């Protein structure tokens, strides 16, 4: 009978769906509610039911959360997992171009290495969705970001043209922000021209690659990220969204709190670093720890990226997002908003539509935590992606087990463990 079912599946070419899983006694925290005693049932990769005190369906694998918090999986609004590789090994790094013709037309997607250890770590730490963005090179356009889904089904890239990143730095435009903004605006103007005229005039500054990347931006289908911290640049970003009627997202935004109302009015979202509080550069003199709280209160869509001089940004993605959310919650942001900023809000900031969280029919992307997810000391107890539980084994846990103090008396050296 089992063999028959197997052959049937094989014949139909259907994926063997995950078992039905019931998480019971969960404290469900998804940024909308915080309720104890919940049962979450996942079947066919999706959330089948969410109920208070619900009984697990017969045959389901029961995971008793024991009252511990259960949240949607984490979402990184801006990171570079999969393209930074081993930091000092240039041939593993694919996050930036510093020469050659590619500007906006440089897409990071083909360079994403699904086997990169940064992806392995992020997934084990409960991150499922990640916007992977290009770093600034020499031009005012860094390139095109990719949206990843870390579900272990092959290529994690779900949208290879998820956002175009612009960098209004003076040094990337010959020495002045004025020139940088002129080039950004000119690029959008060129991309707005009809396709037939796109490559005709000899004085166009963009090549066909860049034009192709920017067309969906001016059509309002793809957001443009402005990487900026200084208030004046953030004001320029707001004007850009108004003048072109396009979706703009500020990435950085250390001084965004100073323009909170204008950001809210224009619908420009901000992806900020909750750890910012130092005048690390002259662009972040106005950094403060309650930036997120001020923006949220004004109604600005926010999400988080946590850098720590780029160490946390990709190498400690999951824990760093939670630490950032915790710090923002300790500095005036509501717990719900803090949790949203690392789960459902990144999609809202980028696309205008938040991801559904733990809702019937949504993907079975759920994490059971061993403590408060906003505490940096907590960690995932179970990670479910598409309704399947992920193995917790990573290269780091293999090293941990190999060198665990309990093994110190082993007769054979570590290489044999």
């Amino acid at each position, binding site marked *: 009978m089992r063999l028959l079912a197997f052959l049937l599946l094989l014949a139909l070419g259907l994926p063997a769906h995950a078992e039905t899983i019931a998480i019971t006694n969960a404290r469900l925290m998804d940024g909308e509610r915080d309720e104890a005693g919940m049962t979450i049932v996942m079947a066919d990769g999706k959330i089948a039911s969410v109920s208070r005190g619900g009984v697990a369906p017969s045959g389901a694998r029961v995971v008793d959360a024991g009252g511990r918090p259960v949240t949607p999986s984490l979402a990184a609004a801006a990171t570079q997992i999969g393209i930074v590789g*081993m*930091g*000092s*090994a240039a041939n593993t790094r694919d996050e930036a171009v510093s020469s050659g013709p590619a500007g906006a037309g440089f897409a990071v997607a083909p360079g994403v290495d699904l086997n990169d*250890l*940064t992806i392995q770590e992020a997934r084990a730490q409960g991150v499922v969705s990640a916007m992977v963005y290009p770093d600034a090179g020499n031009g005012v356009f860094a390139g095109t970001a990719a949206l990843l889904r870390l579900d272990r089904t092959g290529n994690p890239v779900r949208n290879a043209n998820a956002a175009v990143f612009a960098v209004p730095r003076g040094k990337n435009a010959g020495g002045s922000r004025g020139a940088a903004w002129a080039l950004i605006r000119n690029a959008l103007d060129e991309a707005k021209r009809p396709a037939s005229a796109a490559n005709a005039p000899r004085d166009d500054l963009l090549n066909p690659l860049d034009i192709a990347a920017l067309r969906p931006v001016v059509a309002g289908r793809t957001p443009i990220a402005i990487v900026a911290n200084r*208030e004046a640049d953030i004001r320029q970003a707001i004007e850009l969204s108004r003048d072109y009627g396009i979706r703009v997202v500020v990435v950085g935004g250390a*001084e965004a709190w*100073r323009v909170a109302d204008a950001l809210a009015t224009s619908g420009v979202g901000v992806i900020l670093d909750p*750890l*910012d*509080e*130092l*005048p*690390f*550069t*002259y662009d*972040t*003199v*106005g950094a*403060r720890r309650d930036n997120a709280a001020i923006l949220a209160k004004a109604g600005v869509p926010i999400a988080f990226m946590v850098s*720590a*001089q*780029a*160490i*946390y940004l*990709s*190498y*400690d993605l999951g*824990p760093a997002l939670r*630490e950032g959310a*915790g*710090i923002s*919650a*300790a500095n005036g942001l509501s717990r719900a908003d803090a949790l949203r900023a690392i789960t459902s809000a990144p999609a809202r900031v980028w696309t205008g539509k938040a991801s559904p969280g733990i809702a019937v029919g949504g993907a079975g992307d759920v994490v059971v935590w*061993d403590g408060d997810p*906003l*505490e*940096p*000391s*907590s*960690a995932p107890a179970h990670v479910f992606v598409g309704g399947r539980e992920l193995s917790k084994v990573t290269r*780091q846990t293999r*090293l*941990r087990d190999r*060198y*665990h*103090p*309990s093994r*110190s008396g082993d007769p054979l050296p*570590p290489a044999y463990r």
Partner: protein
Amino acid sequence: MKRALRQIALCLTLAAASGQLSAQDNISRPQPMPDAPASEYRPLPRQDTLFVGATILDGAGGKLVGDVLVRDGRIVSLGKVADAGNAVRIDASGRWITPGLIDVHTHYGSFILPQGGSREDYSDIVENSGLNAANTWVEHGVRPSDPAFSRALAGGVTTVQILPGSGVIIGGRTVVVHTIPAVTLAQMRFPGAPQGLKMACGNNAVEQGSFPTSRQGQIAGLRHALHEARELLDRRAGEDGKRGKGGHRGGGGSGDPKEVTLAGAIEGKLPVHLHCYRADDIATWIAVLEEYGVKLGTVHHAVEAYKIAPLLARKGVCAAVWPDWWGFKREAEDGIPENAAFLDAAGACVMMHSDIPVLGSLLNLEAAKAAAAGRRAGLDIPPEKAIRWITSNPAKSLGLEDRVGTIAPGMNADLVVWSGDPFSVFSKPDLVLIDGAVAYDRAQRTRQPQSDFELGQPQREGIE
């Protein structure tokens, strides 16, 4: 002769390592070099204070609910204090008190914020024109108005070491300061704290095209420099023999400044701090330094220290680590979050360190993460143990364990009153005391120091 000196040096450092914490005056610890300048630091205005009913992590492994009495800048008693005299009573029930936090690895003032302008505008991190900068003292490049000091203070950090960077194998002398911003470095210098000596192994100190271009070249360079320092000590010993005892100034003044500094390290007067990531490198450096009678005090970064935890414990070498840095370069490829916990389990002295300013105000969370990783690996790391990783263990690394890092009678009253459990992201320092004086008060703007740089900046309207 060499062996005798080596043994003296070893005795000095062993004595420092095994000292009891309760009696400030009966301890043998590294004495400052004779050429070390005096401190001009003066405690802020203070009053005797009794903190009542706090949860106290004493930094020595103890946890209790009770009172702490501070008088004349020192801890007088803790537990149930019956007679507090005229001390001001502060209700600390529901709050936690720990020793002031200590950060053994910062570049404050020598890599100043904002990092704008040309490199020489903000970076004096190390003299990297050769492989041996033992004659340089980082304090000569420190700008005390770096805004990072006040952020660290607000994060509960009361003492920091500023080290030269890792671009050369012998980086020069370190300086230990309080986090109360001042106009000159001398006004921040921790009185009587020994300077340290910074060294660096591995990638950062490898040169392209000039010596040393390899790890083995670094060791050759190290041996050469230490050999010369030993010769200086031998010459001095010879002069002593001719003149009778007490002839030379011992460790400072006479001789080539590079050799003088390295001789100070051999004599145990300069705690040695080594930037080093890989287990194999760390083991090599411990062995080579030992050949010349230098005891490695603390290995910094040490992402692979967990692989040689028993060695570090046996040699009495401390490790200053992050909880979660890995992967950003090959030397850091094998970093794991359990590093600190595994070291602790082996009996090694371990501590957190920041290295970058954004982490300088988050040391409590760094320790929280490292301890939690250890607990998940099955190790018993209660708060009273984890707090040592940011208090008494770094105090030991700096040779200051008889002064700070522990709440005990006679110790400096460097304290943090936390709004709650210091290992929770939701807790904050309400009060930070240095030498019994309130250096930071979360509720009082007039007790929150601010750098000259940040003063009057339009972007900061509404923050101040």
